[in-house]
């Protein structure tokens, strides 16, 4: 070899070394920064991306989210991992440093993540494998819970998906609320009404029973009453069986047993309903009997029963100082009083309706909405004296004879609010009656239809009341 040939050979060798070094650096840059530039193997030159679709594919490959997370067993080497992923036409997107052997793997075939994870799981080298689930803000805040009750789909007030011409979302957000709590049988809610059919299959497990350590009720006139499950103020005895249906309907809205594969669910899947009967088979009663029934509730509270709410789906335009005074006593005993605003389509600020209009700190007056978030045609309103609105038109609930019926009225709206109050109490047992009232009336979805109609301007939102939204 002459000198010139030698120098040429040296130069060529240097150039080859430099080219190889440069190529290696390019690969590292590509891997680290996911650039579009890649060294194209010679055999692929004929297949270089020339169309927009092919460019998009290359971009997608380099910018894709890994489909599966795979934990390889201790002792499995990095080269083995890469060999395995290459066989599946996958690549290791990232290694999780804090968990040795945990790899985020990108499936270049874009196959189903569940199937890909299953394929890895079948390998002896793999400890576990799972899809890389997408987490949304909604998931972080709540996990909507759906009850198994077969007629839940008819309960638009709890979950409105637009059924029967309704508006999707025009409901009390019950499913999101239930991710926090579905109620508690430590909470007692008094249904002051025509009584309750306590034998109804969807109510019987949620009816309050007087605990053994609570003494029997003593009435000045009637003496000792063997009150096992509530009180009848009409006959002054212990049987609050509903002969009308109204009270049973309201009770079902509050607490028809949830998740029992029967009928419907109440706002509370689990709760203790205390039946109080002061309205007769005709559905009406006297002020005096209403007072006696409230008196019973206060007495039970003072004897240790955890009564947190009275649901009062009744009223008239007659004002009674005596009734107001006993509601004040209930307030002093820490009991919320939720009352129907009335169905005369009138302004309660001009034409008062009682007991909803009493200016007592524990009273919440409730107007009714239809399934399109409009004030129900029959509902009273009042920018000052009506606090909040809730679903109250075409409401399915429990009825006499182990049946179910659809009814309308501010009577129906009231127990939704009372039920939400019970959910709050179940979640926060120590909440005071003042805080409870405030939480209820401030946990609303503001609606244009309720502007200047109710004080809160909105529809009760159970999820907001529980901090789930």
């Amino acid at each position, binding site marked *: 070899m002459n000198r010139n040939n030698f120098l040429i050979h040296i130069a060529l060798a240097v150039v080859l070394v430099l080219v190889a070094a440069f190529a290696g650096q390019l690969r590292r840059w590509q891997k680290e920064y996911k650039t579009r530039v890649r060294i194209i193997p010679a055999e692929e030159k004929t297949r270089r991306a020339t169309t927009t679709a092919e460019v998009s594919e290359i971009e997608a490959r380099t910018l894709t989210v890994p489909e599966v997370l795979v934990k390889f067993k201790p002792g499995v080497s990095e080269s083995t991992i890469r060999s395995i992923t290459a066989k599946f036409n996958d690549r290791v997107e990232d290694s999780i440093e804090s968990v040795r052997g945990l790899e985020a793997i990108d499936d270049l075939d874009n196959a189903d993540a569940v199937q890909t994870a299953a394929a890895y799981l079948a390998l002896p080298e793999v400890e576990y494998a799972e899809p890389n689930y997408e987490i949304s803000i909604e998931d972080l805040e709540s996990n909507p819970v759906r009850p198994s009750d077969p007629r839940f789909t008819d309960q638009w007030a709890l979950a409105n998906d637009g059924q029967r011409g309704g508006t999707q979302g025009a409901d009390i957000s019950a499913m999101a609320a239930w991710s926090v709590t579905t109620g508690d049988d430590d909470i007692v809610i008094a249904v002051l*009404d*025509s009584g309750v059919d306590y034998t109804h299959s969807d109510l019987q497990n949620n009816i309050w029973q007087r605990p053994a350590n609570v003494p029997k009720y003593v009435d000045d006139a009637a003496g000792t009453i063997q009150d096992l499950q509530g009180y009848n103020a*009409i*006959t002054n005895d212990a049987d609050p069986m509903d*002969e*009308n249906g*109204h*009270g049973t*309907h309201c009770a079902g809205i509050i607490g028809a047993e949830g998740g029992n594969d029967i009928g419907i669910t109440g706002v509370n899947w689990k709760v203790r309903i205390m039946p109080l009967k*002061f*309205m*007769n*088979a*005709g*559905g*009406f*009663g*006297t*002020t*005096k009997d*209403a007072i006696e029934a409230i008196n019973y509730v206060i007495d039970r509270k003072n004897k240790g029963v955890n009564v947190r709410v009275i649901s009062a*789906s*009744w*009223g*008239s335009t*007659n004002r009674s100082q005596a009734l107001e005074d006993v509601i004040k006593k209930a307030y002093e005993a820490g009991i919320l009083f939720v009352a*129907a*605003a*009335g*169905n*005369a389509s009138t302004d309660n600020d001009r034409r008062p309706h009682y007991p909803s209009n009493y200016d007592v700190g524990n009273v919440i007056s409730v107007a009714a909405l239809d399934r399109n978030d409009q004030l129900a045609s*029959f509902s009273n309103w009042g920018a000052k004296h009506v606090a909040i609105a809730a679903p109250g038109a075409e409401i399915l609930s429990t009825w006499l004879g182990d049946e179910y019926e659809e*009814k*309308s*009225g*501010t*009577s*129906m709206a*009231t127990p939704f609010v009372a039920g939400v109050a019970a959910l709050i109490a179940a979640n926060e047992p120590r909440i005071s009656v003042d805080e409870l009232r405030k939480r209820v009336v401030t946990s609303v979805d503001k609606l244009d239809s309720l502007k200047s109609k109710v004080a809160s301007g909105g529809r009760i939102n159970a999820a907001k009341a529980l901090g789930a939204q």
Partner: protein
Amino acid sequence: MLAARGNNGRWLVVCSFGSLSNNQNMSYSKEDALSKARNDLAKRLGVKEQDVREGSVEETDFPDTSLGAGSDDEMSGQMITRGWRIKLQANNRTYEYRADRNQVRLYDFKGKNFLL
């Protein structure tokens, strides 16, 4: 109601009024309610029942369980209640009764409502 003749020759009549609950044991059909209403109006006006003519009987919704015709000191369930609006005519005037299977009421008679 109990009637007895006293020593002075005068009759003593004792009336016992049942509770609201006792009055509501009957279940009314439309015809029952119409019949009761005609009978009631005839007595109130002091006329013969055949002089009370049926104006109209229509099925309708009332705003509450007292059929929108609550009496003094009466509280009613705030639930839309289906019933019958019965219009009767007597002495050249029209009178309105309201009824459902549980009750019959006279609406706005001389400014007041009455549960029959």
